[in-house]
């Protein structure tokens, strides 16, 4: 019987090449120019940006801060999202009601949430001025110190993204066959034991998916940093994407910013490949079998 030709895919492929893949190649090219963001199409000016990149203490710090933020995000978000997800997978009424509240942050844009947290963390008038002292933060000036600002960014990221990962784990936990638990409880296994010997192993794939998304998300965390800390105090929360933005669109050093962005492309592509490899997306035959 007749099958459709490639023609149906052509518009989508061309569009994707023009606005996503093409730019990926173009960013590498731009990293060899000294474009200032204005005027005609820039021409190659040499490897200066790359030599500078490897010597730049701000870039080194940005890479370090990105790694710290990624690790902190994973460490904070994974256990909480996993427990909340498994908990909310239960179909009790109280759990359903509370879950509906827990998922509310999902409805807001990252800009809206960053503005909310910026005002909550205001050392003079924000919520933190009132409850900070309970946690040993007398002046409430969390955003004033480097470590504090970084902790604030990690916290806001967690507050914003835990609901999403909770939903992932909820979906995962609901697919574990009930009979596993029934068999375990006949054998006398308590809930804690059941969690570690049934729930956790069964959620293996969900943990992989959620972790990959967390890592990619943390590497590209930008909106919140721009609004909450502007990379400061000093450069203490200048993570790689923010450094790229600042260099490119505030200092108009697009060539160097492109070199920074190229690093992001490489890391993201590596993670993308890993994701396809680990999850087996490309060999998947149906949504029901996936992951």
């Amino acid at each position, binding site marked *: 019987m*007749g099958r459709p030709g490639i023609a149906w895919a052509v518009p989508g492929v061309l569009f994707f090449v*023009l606005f*996503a893949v093409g*730019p990926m190649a173009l960013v590498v090219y731009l990293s060899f120019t000294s474009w200032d963001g204005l005027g005609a199409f820039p021409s190659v000016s040499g490897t200066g940006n790359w030599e500078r990149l490897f010597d730049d203490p701000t870039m080194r710090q940005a890479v370090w801060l990105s790694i710290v933020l990624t690790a902190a995000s994973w460490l904070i978000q994974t256990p909480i999202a996993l427990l909340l997800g498994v908990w909310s997978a239960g179909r009790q009424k109280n759990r359903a009601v509370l879950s509906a509240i827990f998922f509310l942050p999902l409805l807001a844009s990252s*800009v809206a949430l960053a503005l909310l947290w910026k005002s909550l963390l205001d050392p003079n*008038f924000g919520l933190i001025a*009132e409850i900070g002292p309970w946690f040993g933060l007398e002046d409430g000036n969390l955003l004033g110190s480097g470590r504090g600002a970084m902790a604030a960014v990690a916290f806001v990221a967690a507050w914003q993204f835990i609901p999403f990962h909770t939903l992932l784990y909820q979906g995962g936990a609901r697919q574990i066959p009930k009979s596993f638990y029934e068999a375990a409880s006949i054998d006398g296994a308590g809930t804690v034991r059941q969690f570690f010997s049934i729930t956790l192993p069964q959620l293996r794939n969900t943990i992989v998916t959620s972790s990959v998304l967390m890592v990619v998300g943390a590497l590209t965390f930008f909106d919140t940093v721009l609004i909450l800390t502007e990379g400061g105090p000093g450069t203490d929360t200048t993570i790689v994407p923010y450094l790229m933005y600042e260099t490119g669109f505030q200092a108009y050093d697009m060539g160097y910013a492109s070199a920074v962005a190229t690093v992001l492309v490489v890391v993201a592509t590596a993670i993308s490949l890993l994701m396809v490899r680990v999850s087996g997306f*490309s060999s998947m035959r149906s949504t029901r079998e996936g992951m």
Partner: protein
Amino acid sequence: MKTATRPEPRPEQRPRPTEPRPRAPQARNDRGLRGRLRSVRKWNVPAGVASLVWLVIVGLPLYVLVLTTLRDRDAYFDEGSLALPGDLTLDNYRKVLESDFFTYLLNTAIVTVATAAIVIVLSVGVGYTVVRTLSRTSQRIFQFFLLGLAIPAQAVIIPIYLLITQMNLYDSLLAIILPTAAFCLPVCVLILAGTMRDIEEEMYESMALEGASQTRVLLQLVIPLSRGGISTVGVYSALQAWNNFLFPLILTQSRESRVLTLGLYDYVGQFRVDIPALLAAVVLSIVPIFVVYLFARRQLVNGLMGAGGR
């Protein structure tokens, strides 16, 4: 970035929400059942306490958010954010609505609808090819899109800026729509390919027997049977467009082409220390999605998760 993952179980696979479990009590060993109930009760205490702690962590900021927007600016500064307000006022909302809020909202609506439309048309075409064409090329195309799954927009924003200025699209809504749509494609192709693969081979065969053209197969078989996936794709791309900040920030400038997220960011400068008015704008920006959440929760959640709905 949000990506396709396991689908929610379909309703018919679900146990009914009533508790206890549907198994009849006499069907099992009495001691086992009681033992299980006891262990459930034991576990519920720490879980219950933890969930209440989390309720405070999530609920308190949201409570302060809503409360602050209902207060007078001076009262907020004098009494602090936690104090119970004396007089509630809607003045802050009036202030926001009298600014350019509706322009921003309209722009966001245009961007959202246009992005979703472009993404649906393009990804249906790609999905159809990937699923129905047996050639190597179509497998390549699929893998090509998968590669794009984790390309962060920040990484390519500089070349996109160059591209958009060269195309003379800078500071137009199209400048936001085109790249946003392109960045939705990988997830959407993945979702649609998954949904379309579930269509039975026999149905294609019976349409082929009737001598249907490829276009008719697409319009009368593939699209109707992938409605769930298409709605997920639509919601997913609409949310991406609605919440996008980076593309508007870099690619637009003037008030006329400002979308809601950028408008919020702009209010920081406009309202300055008027925190209650700023937060009223934040609340107003959430309201439309909240309304969708109330009326189409399942579709919204599927779209958020990028899960292949059916």
